[in-house]
Each structure stands twice: as structure tokens, then as C-alpha cells.
């Protein structure tokens, strides 16, 4: 049995029994009667200057143990640009921005003390939309943007443009000037999406050995460590981060703004301090998937070849650059993905506004760019008279084709996946008759995501009882990576049962560097590091056993918890016996491994301001949906949904199917009803479950799934990440199906009943996007 065969199985999650019985202790379950509670004073104006901040009355309130303000955490942090203070010190930039924090014996006391803080603010005229931010003479959200420390070189910035990334390849002007092409232009707009993981952002910090120990619900323990050190002026080594079970993340918990506050308060009080966002705070400062405005133009030849494409994507980063700066990178690969392009130029800009900061959300940047790209593709097909599926078959990226930044794609994947979708469509059949008098539409779309691998490390220790302990910075956020795929991988390497692989919870004191759980990278990156960690262990086991059994190591194999003579199942010794022997003669049996991608760099001069020299691992998806649109109410019902997803190799098909089902339903929410809108002061209006409409059981649709295996991947055992991708082209697919059903253009999501009714009645406003010039060059700095 090969290590691959030993690894593949439908191993159930080990954390399910405790989670189902309420025994799992998430971070917010870990308070006890000695824990202090923290509350925040948050801004109620979108922009202003702090004229006076006096916390002396709060300090005298009952139960109060400490108050913290900007003076306690003077450092600025960020990704790309250090523009973000922990507490507003002088300038306020959004409603909800933290200004001060109180730690008290009870939460009620902390809140009462917050109310006693005296704050005077001179309001400033807020900049609330990207259109306002880009208007000539717009007020600067960050007046001193020039003075910020640059953490990553290469992007352009100016004024309210926090960051700009570009991808350029070929002579786009020449392509558009060709006499034999038709030019198709489209504009799109998307709103924000709130993550709503069930566990809010929460942290508990205690001060131990003159260091901060933070227990937190995070996807990025190392980022929390570094940011906390940075804002407090401590070396990061004086911060220890451990991560209990996480109650969902979806990208929200890349944030590191809660944890440093608990550290500041723990240092001041010497007590454990818990800060947990209330649901209101969580909803209104949620680092939503960003709203974006998009303009895209293509020059298409009569035979369907796309000879030129240019696009501009404006991403609203809110008050601070944060992850949007990083995410500008993704546009090249998502909007510039899917199709073979002759010449291309893309720019994506992160724009400052006086609104709550946005963040990364599952298939970040990709879901709306895929929506725009696939709708644009269907608009091309409609204008030029192509069959949309045939057009895709002709133009999707194949072996050797170049992405937007000039990296070649390896392997022919999307085209055979389209064929597989045809098979799946036949198998599933049509649900057309269930439309029953309503408008019926069907669409098939393609999607390209890529996994940014980045550095990971792993240590494996073999124990005297024959079990193995895996030590990493990986976090179980609900996807099953830490409870299923990683123990399977280690077990497969060592011939153990995965139940005998102990997984240590993330602890920055114990495990090596890791860039966090997200983007579908964990199985790939920590998996590869784990395999490397197993190499010396196998060697030592085989060597020791060879001496014990008087058999050359080549004739031995690891299986079923034993070191056996390969030809004689059941022979040899147990791993436990061999480990005990090895420990006594040559010391502990342990190995460490590390991994980072050997990626293909962008073609010289093609990419500017990009954070990742991707493409590390491209992942493809083909989605198909049937919808019925009620012309009276505007309600869209999804009648059927099918997914063919490239997974490289499925180590745990059961778990992957669960991820696909969950991701698609989350995507259906984004496509149809999850709508975040901003009020006149730039505040998020959907502040709770009553106003933010999440998918319910009756909204869910069973997804027909076909996992496509065998595409090239540098992932361990040929794997690719599977949890991020399922949401990538759901909105695109539903929007294209609704456009087909209604015969109208769909330029905005979510497709709520009022919007669909406006579309049906031709009342949906056009999107002229005056803040995006028709001349692409006007949309770039330098």
C-alpha cells in the first residue's frame, strides 16, 4: 500500500463529539470568575479630530482596574503600509473606531465606565464613497499619508489611493486598434458582505513571566504576535499566542485589532482580560468583503479570440489600508484568469474612505472579479453571437497559456472540467419544470483561484506509545484541516492510524513561523512541511528496526502501526517498540520540516505592486446553476446547483464535499440576499441578524459535486486547497443564470427581490462609473 493510498480516507472529524456536546472550549468559553472584562469606547462620528479625551472619571468608576488609550499603544501597523493605530489618537476615521478601552471586574462595570469617559470631537466632513475619495480636491482621509512607514515596496500610492497594483502584458492599444475586432465594455458594482462567523472576534490575555500570553480566536497567530509587539513597542518574542478552537473565520480573523488591546490591559492590571466584540460591534466593524467598482473592456476577434483586455478595479479599503492593499494583488489572477488573453492590462486600487475598514473574505477579491468577468464574458457572447459554453471551451486557459502577469499555466484542466460538467449536467438532469411559470435560466461559469503557499513549518515527535505529536501553527477554524487532512498526511507517512496523530493547538512559543490559515493554503503548506518532518523519523525508525530485526531497511515498511518486513504482513515490531528502542540508544525520534513555494515569478515588467509572485498553485472550478425568477415578486429560486472542482487530489472526499456545500451556500447568500449598506454617516446599517439576511436551511440547495483529480500541483501528494474555492464563482453563476432568465444585463449583486424587479422593469440604474476613466491610462498613477 503506497503512502498515498494510506492517506486517502473519509476520516471523521475528531473534534465533532465535543463540539456536539457543548464541551469544546472556544476562546469566549474560557473566561472564569477571575477574568476581567474589557469594553471599548468607539467613535460615533465618521471623521473628526479629538479635541479632548479625559478618562479620569472612568478610572474612578466601580470595578474599573485600568483604562487604555493611544498613549499605551503608540505604534502603527498594517499590511504594505503602516497606517493603522490601535486607538485613534488625533484623527478619527470611521464610525466604530476604538478610542479607549476599559478593563473592569464585570462587563457591565466596564460599559458603565466607558460611558463616563469625556470625549470632545471636532467633526470633519467625511469622505464616504470611492467616487468622493477620487474626486479632484477630495479631503484626504490620511493627511500625512506620505509619512507612513512602507512595509512592502513596489506599489504606487497617492492621497486617497492607498495602494495601486498593475498587471500589463503585450500591446493592448494595438489590440484594441485592430480593424477586425469588436469592443465590448461593461461596468459592475458590488456591495460588502459580512463574514458573520458564529464566534465573534475575541481574545483573553494574561501577563505571564513579563510577557503577554494571548488566547485568541484567530487565523493568524504569528500576525497577532507581531502586531501586538509592534503597537506596544515590545519585541514580538515577548508575546505568546495560543489558539483554542475557532468558531468560524472565513477570513475575518486575519484581523489583529482585538488582541493587542487585551495585552495592553493585561500589562496594566496584571490580570487576565477578555475582550469580546458584541454582536453589534462585530456586525458594524466586521472588515467586510469590500465593495468594489469595476470597468472592463475587451477586444474580441470574429472567431472569438480575445486579443485584448483592460480593466480597472476600485476596492474600498475603508479607513485603513489593511488587507485590501494586499488583495490588490489578486485582481491580476482572478480578473486576469479564466481565459487566454492576447494582451492585457489591469489596475486595481485600494481607496481610503471614512467607512469601517474592509478585509479578506473567502476567495477574497476573486468572487466579485469572477462575477464581473463571467458576466462580461456572457455580454461578449450575446453581442457577438457565441454560445457561452462553446466560447468558454475555446478560450479557457490551457497548458502553457500565460496568465495576466505572464506566468505560464501548467496542464490542460479547465477544458476537461467543462466536459465533466456536461456529464454532471446530464446526470443531474434539468429542473426546468420546477420553474412552473416563472422565468427560467441556466448558466455555466468557470473560475480560477490560486493558492498562495507562503512559509510553514512543522515538527513531528514520535512518542513511546507509538503515537505521533504534530506541532504547527495551524488553526482549526472549522474546515477540518487540523482534524482530518493533516493527521491523515502524517499517519500516511508513518504507517499510523490518523487517530494516533496528536495535533497540538497553535502556540507561537512551540511552533515555527506560519503565515496563517486562509486561501486554502494549510493542507498544502503545513502538509508539505509535515511530510518533510517525517523524513528523518522514517529513516530513524527503519534504521533502528533494521538492527532489531536483522533485516536491511529497504525490506522494511511502515504500516498498521508496525515496522514490518514488507513481504510478511504482521511481522516485525510495533512502532512503539521501535521508538522505545531508538530513544534508549540514540535519543528522541523527532523531525522538523519547513516549506515555502518555489513559485513561477511574473514576467519581467508585467507586475507592479503585487505582494505575491504567484501563481503558486492555480485551482479551477466550473459551476452550473438553474434558477427560476418570479416576475411578480423578483424572488430568485435556485433550482439546481452543480460543481466540478479541481482538488488536485482528494485526501478526504467527505470533508471536501462538506466544504463545497458550505461554500456554495455562503456564495448563494452573497449572490441573492446578503446585503450590507452604509448609512448617511458611513455606518453599516445591518447591525444584527434581524437586518442582515443569512442563508437559512430553506435557502440551501443540495450541490451536485464532481471532484476533478489529477491536475498538476506542487502540493503534498498532489493536493490543492479545497475550502476557499467553492464560493469563487457562485455569484457569477447565479448572476449569469438570472441574466439568462430575464434577458437583461445584471451589473450588481446581491440579486434581492427589489433589485431583480428593477432589472425586470429596466429601472436598475446604469453604472456610468464617472470615477473610472474610459481611458485606462487615466486610472493609473505614474
Amino acid at each position, binding site marked *: 500500500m503506497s503512502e498515498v493510498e494510506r492517506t486517502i480516507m473519509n476520516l471523521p472529524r475528531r473534534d465533532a463529539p465535543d*463540539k456536539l456536546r457543548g464541551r469544546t472550549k472556544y476562546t469566549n468559553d474560557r473566561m472564569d470568575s477571575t477574568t476581567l472584562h474589557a469594553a471599548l469606547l468607539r467613535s460615533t462620528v465618521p471623521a473628526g479630530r479629538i479635541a479632548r479625551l479625559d478618562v479620569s472619571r472612568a478610572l474612578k468608576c466601580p470595578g474599573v482596574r485600568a483604562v487604555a488609550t493611544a498613549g499605551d499603544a503608540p505604534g502603527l501597523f498594517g499590511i504594505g503600509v503602516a497606517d493603522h493605530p490601535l486607538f485613534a489618537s488625533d484623527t478619527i476615521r470611521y464610525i466604530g473606531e476604538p478610542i479607549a478601552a476599559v478593563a473592569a471586574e464585570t462587563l457591565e462595570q466596564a460599559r458603565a465606565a466607558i460611558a463616563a469617559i469625556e470625549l470632545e470631537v471636532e467633526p470633519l466632513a467625511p469622505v464616504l464613497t470611492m467616487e468622493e475619495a477620487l474626486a479632484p480636491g477630495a479631503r484626504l482621509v490620511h493627511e500625512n499619508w506620505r509619512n507612513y512607514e512602507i512595509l512592502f515596496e513596489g506599489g504606487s500610492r497617492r492621497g486617497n489611493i492607498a495602494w495601486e497594483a498593475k498587471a500589463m502584458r503585450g500591446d493592448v492599444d494595438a489590440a484594441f486598434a485592430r480593424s477586425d475586432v469588436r469592443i465590448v465594455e461593461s461596468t459592475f458594482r458590488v456591495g460588502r458582505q459580512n463574514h458573520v*462567523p458564529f464566534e465573534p472576534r475575541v481574545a483573553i490575555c494574561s501577563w505571564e513571566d513579563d510577557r503577554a500570553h494571548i488566547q485568541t480566536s484567530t487565523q493568524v497567530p504569528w500576525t497577532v504576535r507581531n502586531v501586538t509587539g509592534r503597537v506596544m513597542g515590545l519585541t514580538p518574542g515577548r508575546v505568546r499566542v495560543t489558539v483554542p478552537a*475557532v468558531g468560524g473565520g472565513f477570513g475575518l480573523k486575519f484581523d489583529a485589532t482585538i488582541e493587542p488591546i487585551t495585552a495592553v490591559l493585561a500589562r496594566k492590571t496584571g490580570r487576565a482580560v477578555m475582550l469580546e466584540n*458584541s454582536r453589534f460591534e462585530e456586525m458594524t466593524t466586521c472588515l467586510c468583503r469590500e465593495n468594489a467598482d469595476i470597468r472592463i473592456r475587451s477586444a474580441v476577434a470574429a472567431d472569438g479570440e480575445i486579443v485584448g483586455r483592460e480593466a480597472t478595479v476600485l476596492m474600498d479599503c475603508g479607513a485603513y489600508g489593511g488587507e485590501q492593499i494586499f488583495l490588490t494583488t489578486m485582481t491580476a489572477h482572478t480578473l486576469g484568469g479564466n481565459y487566454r488573453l492576447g494582451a492585457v492590462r489591469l489596475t486595481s486600487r485600494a481607496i481610503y474612505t471614512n467607512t469601517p475598514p474592509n478585509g479578506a473574505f473567502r476567495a477574497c477579491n476573486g468572487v466579485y472579479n469572477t462575477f464581473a468577468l463571467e458576466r462580461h464574458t456572457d455580454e461578449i457572447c450575446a453581442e457577438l453571437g457565441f454560445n457561452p459554453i462553446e466560447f468558454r471551451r475555446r478560450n479557457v486557459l490551457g497548458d502553457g497559456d500565460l496568465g495576466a502577469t505572464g506566468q505560464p499555466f501548467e496542464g490542460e484542466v479547465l477544458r476537461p472540467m467543462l466536459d465533466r460538467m456536461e456529464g454532471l449536467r446530464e446526470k443531474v438532469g434539468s429542473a426546468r419544470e420546477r420553474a412552473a411559470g416563472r422565468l427560467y435560466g441556466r448558466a455555466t461559469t468557470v473560475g480560477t483561484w490560486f493558492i498562495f503557499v507562503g512559509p510553514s513549518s512543522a515538527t513531528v515527535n514520535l512518542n513511546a506509545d507509538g503515537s505521533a505529536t504534530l506541532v504547527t501553527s495551524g488553526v482549526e477554524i472549522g474546515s477540518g484541516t487540523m482534524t482530518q487532512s493533516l493527521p491523515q498526511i502524517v499517519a500516511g507517512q508513518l504507517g499510523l492510524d490518523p487517530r494516533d496523530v496528536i495535533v497540538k493547538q497553535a502556540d507561537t512559543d512551540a511552533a515555527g513561523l506560519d503565515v496563517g490559515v486562509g486561501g486554502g493554503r494549510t493542507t498544502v503548506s503545513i502538509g508539505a512541511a509535515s511530510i518533510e518532518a517525517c523524513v528523518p523519523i522514517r529513516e530513524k525508525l527503519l534504521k533502528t528496526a533494521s538492527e532489531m530485526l536483522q533485516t536491511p531497511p529497504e525490506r522494511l515498511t511502515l504500516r498498521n502501526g508496525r515496522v514490518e518486513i514488507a513481504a510478511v504482513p504482521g511481522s516485525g515490531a510495533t512502532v512503539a517498540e521501535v521508538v522505545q528502542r531508538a530513544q534508549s540508544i540514540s535519543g528522541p525520534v523527532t523531525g522538523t520540516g519547513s516549506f515555502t513555494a518555489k513559485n513561477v515569478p511574473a514576467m519581467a515588467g508585467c507586475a507592479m505592486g503585487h505582494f505575491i509572485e504567484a501563481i503558486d498553485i492555480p485551482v479551477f472550478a466550473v459551476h452550473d446553476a438553474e434558477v427560476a425568477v418570479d416576475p411578480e415578486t423578483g424572488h430568485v429560486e435556485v433550482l439546481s446547483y452543480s460543481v466540478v472542482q479541481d482538488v488536485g487530489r482528494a485526501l478526504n472526499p467527505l470533508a471536501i464535499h462538506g466544504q463545497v456545500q458550505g461554500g456554495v451556500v455562503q456564495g448563494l447568500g452573497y449572490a441573492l440576499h446578503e446585503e450590507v449598506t452604509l448609512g448617511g454617516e458611513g455606518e453599516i446599517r445591518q447591525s444584527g441578524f434581524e437586518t442582515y439576511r443569512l442563508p437559512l436551511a*430553506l435557502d440551501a440547495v443540495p450541490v451536485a459535486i464532481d471532484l476533478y483529480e489529477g491536475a498538476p500541483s506542487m502540493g503534498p501528494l498532489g493536493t490543492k486547497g479545497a475550502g476557499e474555492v467553492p464560493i469563487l464563482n457562485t455569484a457569477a453563476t447565479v448572476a449569469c443564470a438570472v441574466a439568462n432568465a430575464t434577458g437583461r444585463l445584471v451589473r450588481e449583486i446581491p440579486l434581492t427581490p427589489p433589485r431583480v424587479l428593477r432589472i425586470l422593469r429596466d429601472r436598475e440604474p446604469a453604472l456610468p462609473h464617472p470615477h473610472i476613466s474610459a481611458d485606462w491610462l487615466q486610472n493609473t498613477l505614474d
Partner: protein
Amino acid sequence: MSTTFQLNGETCRFDGDPMTPLIDLLRCQRFMTGTKAVCREGFCGACTVNVEGEPVLACLRPVGLLEGLSVMTIEGASRYDAEAQLLQAAFERVDAVQCGMCFPGMVMSLSKFLRETPRADRNAVKHAMVGNICRCTGYERIVDAVMECLAEAHSAGGADV
């Protein structure tokens, strides 16, 4: 003023403000954290407990209204409630659980459904679940698990409607 009620079979006396929501008594005073507080506004179902066998939202129920009643939380149901145990086993089997935060409430809501509705179809199960939101799983697996339980209960001679 004090309130006395049965909590998972044991007598529980509470001397604070009778308007205290049950969720706060459980989580913040007894540190019984199996019951999850997610929305605190009666919409998500994560805080569901059983009062006199009926699913009740602990974030909306003041402790003062529990005088003399019997309250069962996920901790108690996991020990004493046969339907809850059936559901837990099925959720494990079909790999329905992801982050897990919604599941204690899901089990508490569905155990009564299972007891009283042995012949439901998928759609009826979904209707029974609309008060319990799950952000992670996309629901279908949960419905699969409930359907398995229904089949099991039926083949074990569950009551017919």
C-alpha cells in the same frame, strides 16, 4: 428575589435580577458554556435549550420566568436525552460539523422534532431548522443526518403518525 428551577435534573437557585437572561446565568455565572451566545437577539438559535421539553431561546428568556420549571441544556441532553444522542451520533457519522458553534442549539431544537415527527421528509426537516442558522455547513449534511435518525428511529419501531 430568588428563582428556583430544575437545571439538568438538579435544583438551581438564582438570587439576582429576575430579568437576567438565562444565557447569562448559564454562561457568565455558572460557566456552563455549552450553550452558545451568538446573536443574543433571538434569531440564530445557537442558544436553544429545552424548558419543560420545549425548545426555548436562552437569550430571550428571563430567569425569573423559570420558577418551578425544568430546564435542560446541551450538557444535560447529552447525558439524558436519547434523541439528542441519536442526533449527535448521526452528525458525527455524516461529518456535518464544521466550526461547531451552531450545533448545541441545533441538537436542542431537533431532538424534540425527532421525538414528535418520526415521518418527516427533507422539506419538513428544513422547516424545523429555520430557527437555527449555520454559517458553515450549507445545511444539507445536517438534513442528511436528521433523515438518517428518522430512518433509524422508524426501523427501531418509532411511533407512526
